[in-house]
């Protein structure tokens, strides 16, 4: 085996090794540095990597050092970071539903009640494409990140569509669901797309052919949340039947039913490793589960009203829950301890996300504002004001220097920070 080159992965921090097998096949494996902090002893870490990883020899230490410093720079917290309104986008004539960035953050997409999905240029705020064809609300949308050359849209018209993100051409219409499609996801490998519907099923589709591969049947109520794990071999679904299920992609079989909540599931997510997952529920709690045996490891209580969204940070050591009680709560995943309570919103919080470096959280609320918070102290750092109706969705780009917000007021707003520079190309270290 011969090492060909290194690739850096900023969030969560990691070094990807591209190597060649004897038979000539190129393969990759990653060294995950999930515990990297700006205080990490770099020399100790380098020695450990060289010791444990046969592909990396002593003479690669300098390259390794350079990469680790770069990763540390990326996760460094910028205390003086502030976001300001960059653009208001008014192309939709009805309320927005969801919004999402491509990996580099150069483009983003918005779905709307006006039955379109629009593709936007983040830098200029220009509308690049209108994806037109659905006959009802475009509710769920996603890019096939990290590639970013395809988009999937899920609609209340019972179909999902696959689109070319560069030309706007509709590649496939995915037909088979009996009612509204409300969640969609690509696997990270970009080969499969999954759709979840109010018809109680999730379906798995081949991206190239648009053919249905499997129908995941077993939930007894609407599926409202759906995720792939990082390896792309499992799917997690959350349902109004009070359970979540873990499915095997290869066979379409249900591996575990995560039962225990006493109310509908509102949101689900895998952590980066895929060993754990979380579920948020109308029963006011969030549960942490062991994906491998389906056991509940922790029930996180504290909210006084429905939990509406849950999210891990990129490394998986923190999670945040957003609630109709107008607060969000940050928990240490290892201990289950509540680290901070984010208090300040005057309406329910329906969406929450960590910044890629994990220092900040953004919340979207029915009080028409988004807020940015310090994860460790719970302090509100900034209020993003301006929308004239409730905010349904928000997202950080991968660099963490741009935020988009989608509202019931028919607009999408782009917010940029004071450090903003156009996105860099991915770092590569040729060997």
């Amino acid at each position, binding site marked *: 085996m011969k090492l060909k080159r290194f690739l850096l992965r900023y969030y969560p921090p990691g070094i990807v090794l591209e190597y060649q097998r004897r038979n000539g096949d190129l393969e990759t494996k990653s060294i995950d540095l999930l515990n990297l902090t700006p205080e990490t002893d770099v020399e100790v870490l380098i020695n450990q990597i060289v010791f444990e990883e046969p592909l990396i020899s002593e003479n690669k230490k300098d390259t390794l050092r350079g990469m680790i410093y770069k990763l540390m720079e990326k996760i460094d917290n910028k205390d003086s970071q502030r976001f300001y309104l960059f653009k208001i986008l008014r192309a939709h004539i009805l309320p927005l539903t969801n919004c999402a960035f491509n990996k580099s953050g150069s483009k983003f997409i918005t779905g709307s*009640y006006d039955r379109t999905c629009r593709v936007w240029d983040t830098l200029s705020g220009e509308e690049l494409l209108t994806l037109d064809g659905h006959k009802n609300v475009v509710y769920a949308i996603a890019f096939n990140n990290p590639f970013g050359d395809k988009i999937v849209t899920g609609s209340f018209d019972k179909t999902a569509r696959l689109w070319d993100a560069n030309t706007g051409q509709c590649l496939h219409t995915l037909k088979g669901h009996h009612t509204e499609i409300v969640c969609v996801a690509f696997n990270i490998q970009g080969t499969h797309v999954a759709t979840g519907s*109010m018809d109680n099923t999730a379906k798995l589709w081949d991206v190239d052919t648009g053919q249905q591969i499997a129908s995941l049947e077993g939930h007894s109520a609407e599926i409202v949340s759906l995720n792939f794990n990082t390896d792309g071999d499992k799917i997690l679904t959350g349902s109004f039947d009070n359970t979540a299920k873990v499915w095997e992609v290869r066979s379409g079989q249900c591996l575990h039913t995560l039962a225990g909540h006493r109310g509908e599931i509102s949101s689900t997510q895998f952590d980066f490793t895929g060993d754990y997952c979380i579920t948020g529920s109308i029963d006011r709690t969030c549960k942490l589960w062991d994906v491998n045996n389906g056991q509940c490891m922790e029930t996180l209580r504290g909210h006084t009203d429905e939990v509406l969204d849950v999210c891990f940070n990129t490394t998986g050591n923190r999670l945040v829950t957003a609630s109709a009680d107008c607060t969000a709560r940050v928990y240490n995943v290892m201990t289950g301890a509540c680290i901070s309570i984010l208090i300040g919103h005057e309406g329910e919080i329906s969406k929450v996300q960590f910044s890629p470096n994990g220092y900040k959280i953004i919340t979207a609320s029915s009080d028409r504002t988004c807020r940015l918070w310090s994860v460790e102290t719970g302090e509100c750092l900034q209020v993003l004001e301006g929308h004239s109706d409730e905010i349904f969705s928000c997202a950080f780009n991968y660099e963490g220097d741009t935020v988009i917000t989608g509202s019931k007021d028919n607009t999408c707003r782009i917010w940029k920070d004071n450090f903003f520079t156009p996105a860099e190309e991915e770092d590569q270290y040729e060997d």
Partner: protein
Amino acid sequence: MGLLSILKKMKKEEREARILVLGLDNAGKTTILKKLSEEDITHIMPTQGFNIKSLVQDGFKLNVWDIGGQKAIRPYWSNYFENTDALVYVIDSSDRRRLEESGHELSELLNEDKLGGIPMLVYANKQDLMHATPADEISEVLGLQGIQDRVWQIQACSAKTGDGLQEGMEWLVQVAKKD
């Protein structure tokens, strides 16, 4: 509210009914809804999308969807047809000039398969205004008498004063319960 609550309101529940409120722009749909839920009606802006309110009437929960009525967004009314249990159509009785337009939109709605056979309440709103057309005359102009395929009722009302609103809702719950 939030997107999740919208999904929750879309599903069918026992002892709940989904009510769709339509009508031309400026008919007073949002004002009626706010008045019914005892909210302030002094600053109401044209609805650009939709509003959802839950009203409880006689132990029955009404999830009321109030949809913007401007011409450009009327083609999207069908986004909201699925699972509708009853239709409320609101008319500005003081706007004689647009009565025909209102009647035209209504007849289109009555031909929609997804709204077929469901009960309809027509609110003849703004009766507090001096030159408002009386409800029976509106009924005549719109040809409501000819409707055979559903139960319907016309109710004179004023969203401003609240007169007639309650009577309309009571009728609606009574027919929705029979389903």
